[in-house]
């Protein structure tokens, strides 16, 4: 953790460092203790219910708080507490527009599919998203296709998320006495042997701690452990932000004072498209076309995530869903707009106002240390770690359910015993986690782009197929395959075109107004993010191909769409 504040004499900084180190350790220790207690309780419950349904879906018994916080915490990744505050601090009020579509995210992502998806899943006792598609269209092949696409995206994403977890943990521990020494001695030679000199042994040790913890409690406790730890993580994040808001405003002298200072010194912090990065003065931070894309990316694509959909199959009754939407609405309103206010106000907080660009990723702990008591700073420093952890554990379980439930049980051995399924589920979760952990030792660069690519790709591949399958009786098997592949391939094509730079010669035309000045960026056709095109292609193909491919069997339509006899 970086706490080198440019305020006060050196001794004050050192005292602050020591306090922060102690509070970080205490907060982290308490947090880890809580995680393992919850995993232990969840594991005990596994022996009392049918194993597969309990391990992967919590036996469809999620209540309001569990559903709401598990949903909110899984959606909020580490970026919400590291990258997002840094962007607000750097670019100003335009981040309110960047995150603006979160005003409808709770109701859209949970309400659009929630009730109907839960009902459809109950009809056939479906436990995973491939289950739902396989049953709805009577096709093993479709189930396997869905399984393959989920596995592809999830494994790519997990490596990126593990890297994020390792980096955050290293940031937390970096300045703790003995950490660097331990890492150098224990893993220095290994880091050199695998060619990991850039991130170094400190990262490897943090990655091992992070990976071992997540893999252990997820494989041991299953879905319930994931959900309960999500609730705890969501509470940690929420309380931290709500306490920080008044403290930051008080330290900044109130919002009007912040406004006056920005208007005088950096008016670009008050207006879109936001302040350009110092090293790229010509870059528009948020061009208007990207602002349009964000309404699709956050709200609509959020509804299309298999990890979200699984939670929507797990709640107890429709009343639970409605109360949970309300709870998430309150939670998001209390988190995201206050975050914008806090880190705009940080520009007027002594000691935080003029951070150099390389320090802005740590603006949250720096602000917390500047305005809050050290115990609260410890809590806030644990928040990004909690956010990454709650995202990773859900994805890990999604992959193992893919392998064990969708591939092994439903395709290879439908007669697998309870004992076999229990052993396989725990082993698969642990093995997948270990493989991803090994891959993350040599992680890919461009973390944020990979995470966005995965989220967008999953939405383009699953939102229209699932949405049309549950709401449109006319949707056919062929239409579903076309919709899924159409969305997937559109996304893949636009990313490949962007990465290879093949279409760069079109820059400046209406077709490609701007090529993002980053190697790994996708091609923004007509200035719109690929997710808009992927969702559009998937929806169009699903409808057109279904209409061209004849009526679906009447028995299927009756089973899913007619009043039960």
């Amino acid at each position, binding site marked *: 953790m970086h706490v080198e504040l440019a305020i006060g004499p050196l001794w004050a900084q050192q005292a602050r460092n020591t306090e922060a180190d102690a509070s970080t350790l205490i907060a982290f220790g308490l947090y880890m203790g809580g995680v393992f207690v919850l995993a232990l309780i969840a594991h005990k419950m596994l022996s009392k219910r*049918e*194993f*597969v*349904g309990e391990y992967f879906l919590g036996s469809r018994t999620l209540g309001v708080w569990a559903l709401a916080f598990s949903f909110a915490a899984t959606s909020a990744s580490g970026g919400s507490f590291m990258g997002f505050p840094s962007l607000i601090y750097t670019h100003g009020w335009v981040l*309110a*527009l960047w995150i*603006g*579509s979160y*005003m*409808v995210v*709770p*109701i859209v992502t949970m*309400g*659009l*599919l929630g*009730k109907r998806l839960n*009902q459809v899943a*109950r*009809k*056939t*006792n*479906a436990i995973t998203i491939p289950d739902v598609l*396989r*049953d709805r269209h*009577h096709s*093993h092949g479709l189930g396997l296709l869905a399984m393959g696409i989920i596995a592809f995206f999830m494994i790519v994403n997990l490596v990126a998320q593990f890297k994020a977890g390792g980096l955050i943990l290293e940031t937390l521990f970096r300045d703790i006495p003995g950490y660097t020494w331990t890492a150098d001695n224990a893993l220095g030679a290994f880091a050199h042997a695998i060619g990991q000199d850039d991130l170094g042994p400190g990262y490897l040790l943090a990655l091992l701690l992070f990976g071992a913890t997540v893999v252990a409690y997820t494989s041991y406790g299953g879905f319930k452990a994931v959900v309960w730890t999500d609730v705890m993580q969501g509470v940690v994040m929420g309380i931290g932000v709500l306490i920080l808001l008044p403290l930051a405003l008080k330290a900044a002298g*109130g*919002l*009007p004072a*912040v*406004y006056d200072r920005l*208007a005088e010194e950096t*008016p*670009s912090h008050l*207006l*879109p498209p936001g302040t350009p990065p110092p090293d790229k003065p010509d870059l528009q931070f948020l061009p*208007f076309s990207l*602002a349009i894309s964000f309404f699709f990316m956050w*709200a*609509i694509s959020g509804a299309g995530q298999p990890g979200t959909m699984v939670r929507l199959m797990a709640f107890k009754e*429709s*009343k639970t869903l409605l109360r949970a*939407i*309300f709870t998430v609405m309150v939670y998001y309103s209390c988190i995201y707009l206050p975050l914008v206010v806090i880190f705009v106000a940080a520009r007027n907080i002594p000691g935080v106002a003029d951070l150099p660009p390389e320090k802005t990723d740590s603006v949250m702990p720096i602000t917390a240390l500047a305005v809050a008591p050290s115990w609260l700073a410890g809590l806030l420093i644990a928040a990004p770690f909690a956010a990454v952890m709650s995202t990773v554990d859900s994805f890990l379980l999604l992959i193992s359910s893919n392998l064990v439930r969708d591939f092994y049980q439903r*395709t290879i051995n*439908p*007669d*697998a015993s309870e004992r076999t399924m229990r052993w396989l589920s725990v082993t698969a979760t642990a093995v997948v986690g270990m493989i991803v952990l090994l891959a993350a030792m040599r992680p890919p660069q461009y973390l944020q782009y990979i995470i966005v690519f995965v989220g967008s790709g999953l939405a383009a591949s699953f939102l229209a197929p699932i949405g049309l399958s549950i*709401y449109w009786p006319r949707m056919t098997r062929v239409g579903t395959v076309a919709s899924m592949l159409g969305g997937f391939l559109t996304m893949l094509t636009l990313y490949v075109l962007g990465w290879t730079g093949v279409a760069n010669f079109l820059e400046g035309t209406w077709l490609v107004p701007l090529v993002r000045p980053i190697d790994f960026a996708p091609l923004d056709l007509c200035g719109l993010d690929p997710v808009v095109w992927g969702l559009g292609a998937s929806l169009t193909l699903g409808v057109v191909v279904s209409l061209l491919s004849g009526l679906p*069997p*009447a*028995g299927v*339509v*009756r*089973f*899913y*769409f*007619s*009043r*039960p006899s």
Partner: protein
Amino acid sequence: MSEPYPPTDDPVFRHARREALVILGLWLTCLLYTLTVCYFWGYNRDPATLTDVWGIPDWVFYGIFFPWAFCDLFTIWFCFFHAKEDDLGAGEAVPGTTPDLGGWADVRRGPGSPEQIQTNRGSVRPGGSDDAR
């Protein structure tokens, strides 16, 4: 040769579809309102003409905070007064009611699960509802 096309009168399906359309309408309204206000009041604005509401730039206050408050009120109305609290079913398939998967093997959804679909023998008709009756 084919059975008559069945009615789509499941009440949960109808309620859920209607609620989904309301939600899509809200999303579209917010998209149009927010982007319109932010485009005309925010993009290409002369900073000298900018005003604030309680320290918040006017385009942020009217373009984002205001519709955000509206969405929160709408969500309260939707969750507590509009959406139906439907019975979603038991969560366990009734024996014989699950459709034929037409796949490669007998498929049994989970050990202990009551349903068994015998695809190879073809004893369960598509839709399976005849067996259920």
